[in-house]
């Protein structure tokens, strides 16, 4: 499968000065995505090692690139799960958690905290294992900050949670078509429906008794929810200014 890669993306510029910003601007022409990136087959025992190992996730020119193919998509998902997990970790550990939210809200947010940490840790273990024996690298722990989010304010936290969950759903919906390995596709499916359950619950806490749980601004007249490719999602997430660690996604569509 031949793909044209023209996307150059950067995230989290706060730690990057102008000079290093320039190094993100990398133009990639035509690259082959395929055999080498079936992670499970990435040991040196077959022809899969002839694949373009340069697309595996790892540091290039001093900045971590998510990579391409299945490795890149899974690492992209891992980055998004890191963000969600970190956000809810801060929510439930806020000193005012017990007073800002009622019992139902605390239960929902505590569950989301657990689920997102589990997703993050799952990807960490699964990707780490799949990259063994390759020259790919596991995405390091990203750093986060939440300018503009008031963890002691119900509306601020729930609004941010809604944005993150809605983003997660459309990101997974859009990523599915890029996954080569059917097993990984099913795993992404196992996670995205939980994200959609989250999105629904958060929206119903914000606007109970309304259509907000599955709203018309996210679901079109065919009854289809949004699906966006990585090159659309990553700038949207970057614009939230939550991710402080720079990385690139030069090999994802």
């Amino acid at each position: 499968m031949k793909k044209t890669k023209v996307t150059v993306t950067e995230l989290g510029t706060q730690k990057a000065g102008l000079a290093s910003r320039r190094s993100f601007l990398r133009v990639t022409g035509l690259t082959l995505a395929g055999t080498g990136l079936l992670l499970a087959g990435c040991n040196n025992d077959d022809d899969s090692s002839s694949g373009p190992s340069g697309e595996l996730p790892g540091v290039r020119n001093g900045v971590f690139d998510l990579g391409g193919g299945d490795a890149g998509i899974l690492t992209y998902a891992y980055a998004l799960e890191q963000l969600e997990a970190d956000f809810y970790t801060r929510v439930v550990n806020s000193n005012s958690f017990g007073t800002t939210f009622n019992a139902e809200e605390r239960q929902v947010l505590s569950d989301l905290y657990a689920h997102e940490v589990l997703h993050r840790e799952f990807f960490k273990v699964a990707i780490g294992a799949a990259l063994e024996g390759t020259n790919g690298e596991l995405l390091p722990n990203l750093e986060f900050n939440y300018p503009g989010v008031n963890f002691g304010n119900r509306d601020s936290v729930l609004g941010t949670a809604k944005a993150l969950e809605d983003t997660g759903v459309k990101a997974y919906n859009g990523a599915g078509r890029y996954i080569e390995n059917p097993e990984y596709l099913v795993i992404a499916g196992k996670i995205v429906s939980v994200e959609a359950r989250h999105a629904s619950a958060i929206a119903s806490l914000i606007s109970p008794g309304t259509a907000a749980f599955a709203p018309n601004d996210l679901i079109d007249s065919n009854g289809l929810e949004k699906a966006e490719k990585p090159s659309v999602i990553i700038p949207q997430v970057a614009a939230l200014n939550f991710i402080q660690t720079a990385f690139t996604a030069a090999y994802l569509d």
Partner: protein
Amino acid sequence: MNILKLIESFTNEGVVQSLSVKSSRRDSFTQFGKVGTGAALAAIPFISLFTTNKASAAAAMFSPETEVAALKLALTLEYLEKEFYLTALNSTGLIPSADQAIIAQISQHETAHVAFLQTALAANAQAKPEFDFTVGGAFDPFNNYDEFLILAQAFEDTGVRAYKGQAGNLKSNGDLLTAALQIHSVEARHASQIRRLRGLKGWIVGNQRGAGMPEATQAVYNGEENTIHGGVNISTFMASSGNPAFGAGSYTEAFDEPMDRPTAEAIAGLFY
């Protein structure tokens, strides 16, 4: 997603049209006339498009027949849901005013899903079955709101699992797979909302069908207790990794499980 674009790609790749194996020569000409420049592509055997890389091994596991079967299962489930919610909305006094907006929104989606799948399947679309939502008198969902919600939960949770189970069968057609995923997440939003109306969590705990759900619905939840994904046992490594300890339920809540086609068909088949 532009439905015309989807149908176009669908047709170009010969997925559905080439399935009508029994189609007459005249039908073939009609098909090719419709697809225009796509005709050349449509004539290429489906699998041969994937022979150049290792992904072909995975793609070859799925035949076009499987792809249509996946869509037909989806259409059966959507027919079921569409009629279920429309009947409920037309049953005077059934739905409390506080829940009207919710049920109407779900109904709108299910109606749209039926139309979408009928268009995608074209001549392969099956007719709507005659449904009996009382299952021979065992349920009274259009006079009893609790029973309506019980069946709604069962249908939505089944839908999520069934679409997930068919994703792999659709992966040869990216537009089609994406559309299925876009429906899948909508069903999950519905499921969460219905479950929460019933006082449950929006997510499935272990293989529990949840308070108030009759034994007859257990088939919807069997297998949801799985904690092994891609060879990784989430509960085992979390216990040994120094991560925070979560309640046992979290490990299964965080991952929804697929359901195979025969199981989903058997559940739907109870109602027609």
